[in-house]
């Protein structure tokens, strides 16, 4: 067990990849696949929590693959990455439990399990890696597996497969372009510093900056990274794919995409800008802040006009990721901690809302909110859970979203960003409006033709569908009522992000074989 404790980072990446391969061979035995994938993902969740505890108690863990020191690929688990891995593992476990009853059996055993495992491997890998080219590789694993998952069929078939094709095409083309941009950036960074290890790049760039010989094209590279991570996170000029892709994906995949996958962009921004390019931040902080404000505005205004419940949630994701980037743009310990608290709360609440919307669609047989109405009687559980999620996204007091918004605005005011906070506050009111408009349209009012539900309405709310939603809702409420542990953790993480020296030490002081 002690010997195994050193290998936790690689376990989190290698196990899902192996599971994916195994699932392909087991596609004729759906029962074994089900049991195996559930147990693997449960174990992964436990392992990720263990790793977080290990990092919390004994500092940053660097795991060298093949003992090549800083010249090889290195996996680094600091508080930020291990926290993100815990978030991924929990949300993915719950989404998998949910999809057992939600995804069509044929699609489930043929392609869903392997692709889902690969998606988790890509997520864990991109959070844990300490090598910038490896980050690109994991981004591609993420991209391809999520494309396959968006196409997966759900039961009931509310989404036409032509819609799925169109959305996936947009997603794939835009993300291929962004990965091309990322390759250009990585190649230029390698040509500038002669290394791909992020800690090593950081050391060399800060040495150049201290000597006053920072080449001007480093600013261009940093800008390219803003484009790349902005595209992953759907920041304002690059957000057009998200409202098409997230609604057409099956609900558990929407929960993964909105809950975790767009957070990869925020993670990359924190990692790359505060570790590698801290000397360009004085120039790019306003860029990040104003892009974030534009994202908030565009997302909130577009969400108000939506009639499709999942499209509304997708635009809400665009708007909410803007708040996370606003916190990153404020900088400082308080701003980053607020961004992290916001990120965790949004991940929980939004994945819960997407899972709930899956139940609602299951129930009503349509995604159009105008055709729903009066569902509070026929689906009381879904309406309670949607209310919980809506209150958290809107930032009403007993839920986690309130703490997150409060921290963020407090950070903005203490950083004297009054104008930015005013805009963000104004559009927080929009958030309340569109979330409760959806609530009113779907659950209150007169009963429409909800008696003639879709094909699967007799199916009801099974325990496999209810359980993940309840767990996430508990998370949302607990982070609202007892937020101190999360805030303490976020503050410690923000301190670690702003002072990259321990990270660099952990990576660079490796013995090369």
């Amino acid at each position, binding site marked *: 067990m002690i010997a195994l404790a050193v290998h936790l980072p690689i376990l989190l990446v290698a196990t899902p990849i192996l599971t994916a391969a195994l699932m392909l061979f087991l596609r004729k035995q759906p029962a074994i696949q089900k049991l195996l994938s559930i147990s693997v993902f449960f174990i992964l969740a436990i392992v990720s929590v263990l790793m977080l505890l290990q990092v919390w108690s004994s500092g940053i863990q660097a795991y060298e693959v093949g003992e090549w020191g800083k*010249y090889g690929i290195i996996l680094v688990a600091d508080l930020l990455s291990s926290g993100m891995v815990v978030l991924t593992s929990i949300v993915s476990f719950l989404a998998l439990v949910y999809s057992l009853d939600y995804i069509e059996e044929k699609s489930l055993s043929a392609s869903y399990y392997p692709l889902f495992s690969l998606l988790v491997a890509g997520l864990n890998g991109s959070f844990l890696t300490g090598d910038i*080219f490896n980050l690109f*590789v994991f981004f*591609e694993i993420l*991209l*391809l597996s999520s*494309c*396959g998952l968006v196409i997966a069929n759900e039961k009931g078939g509310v989404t036409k*497969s*032509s*819609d799925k*094709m*169109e*959305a*996936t*095409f947009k997603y*794939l*083309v835009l993300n*291929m*372009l962004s*990965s*091309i941009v990322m*390759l*250009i950036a*990585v*190649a*230029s960074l*390698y*040509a*500038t*510093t*002669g290394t*791909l290890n992020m800690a090593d790049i950081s050391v*060399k760039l800060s040495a*150049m900056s201290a000597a006053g010989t920072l080449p001007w094209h480093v600013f261009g590279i940093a800008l390219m990274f803003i484009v790349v991570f902005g595209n992953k996170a759907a920041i304002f000029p690059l957000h057009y794919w998200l409202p*098409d892709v997230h609604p*057409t994906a099956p609900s558990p995949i929407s929960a993964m995409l909105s809950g975790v996958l767009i957070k990869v962009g925020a993670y990359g921004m924190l990692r790359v800008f505060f570790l590698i390019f801290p000397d360009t931040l004085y120039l790019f902080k306003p860029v990040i802040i104003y892009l974030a404000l534009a994202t908030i505005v565009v997302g909130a205004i577009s969400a108000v006009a939506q009639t499709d419940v999942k499209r509304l949630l997708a635009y809400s994701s665009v708007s909410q990721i803007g708040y996370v980037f606003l916190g990153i743009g404020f900088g400082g310990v308080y701003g980053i901690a607020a961004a992290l608290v916001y990120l965790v709360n949004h991940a929980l609440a939004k994945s819960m809302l997407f899972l709930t919307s899956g139940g609602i669609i299951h129930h009503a047989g349509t995604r159009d909110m105008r055709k729903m109405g009066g569902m509070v009687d026929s689906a009381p559980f879904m309406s309670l859970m949607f209310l919980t999620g809506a209150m958290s996204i809107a930032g009403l007091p007993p839920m986690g979203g309130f703490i997150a918004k409060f921290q963020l605005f407090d950070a903005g005011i203490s950083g004297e960003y009054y104008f930015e906070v005013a805009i963000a506050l104004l559009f927080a009111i929009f958030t309340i409006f569109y979330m409760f408009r959806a609530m009113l349209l779907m659950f209150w009012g007169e009963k429409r033709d909800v008696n003639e539900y879709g094909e699967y309405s007799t199916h009801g709310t099974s325990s496999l569908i209810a359980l993940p939603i309840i767990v996430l809702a508990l998370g949302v409420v607990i982070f609202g009522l007892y937020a101190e542990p999360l805030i303490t953790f976020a503050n410690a993480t923000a301190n670690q992000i702003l002072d990259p020296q321990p990270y660099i030490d952990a990576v660079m002081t490796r013995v*090369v*074989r």
Partner: protein
Amino acid sequence: MNNTLLSLTIAILFGIGTFLILRRDIVRVIIGLGILSHAVNLLIVSTGVFAGTKVPIIVDDGGHGAVEATGSIFTDTLSLNILAPVLAAGHHTDYVDPLVQALVLTAIVISLATTAFILILAYRIYEEYGTTDLKELRRLWG
């Protein structure tokens, strides 16, 4: 050497790729993406070409102890003779960086996978919509 010619080739490829991905036909967009990714691959290879005298990989300094490398950032000075790609002390030669070729190999494989996926996707879109015109793909806009 002919770095100008190489840069010009890369620039022209980027230009063609950008032109093609702005077309209305799905197949041209895919070809454009392929050309763009090959332009990037050439760019990565070109970062491994050096005309200088310094070796882009680790240099053994002949056991004089670890000296802080100040001149070129490409020179890492290690006192212990324990690394595999080591050049003998006091010996300088022109060298092509082997790492970028490994990077390009990875990038080629990844772009192969994405291109295969997107070609199949384009075929399915043609089946569903009966056209390869991107302007017709607007069912999700409303």
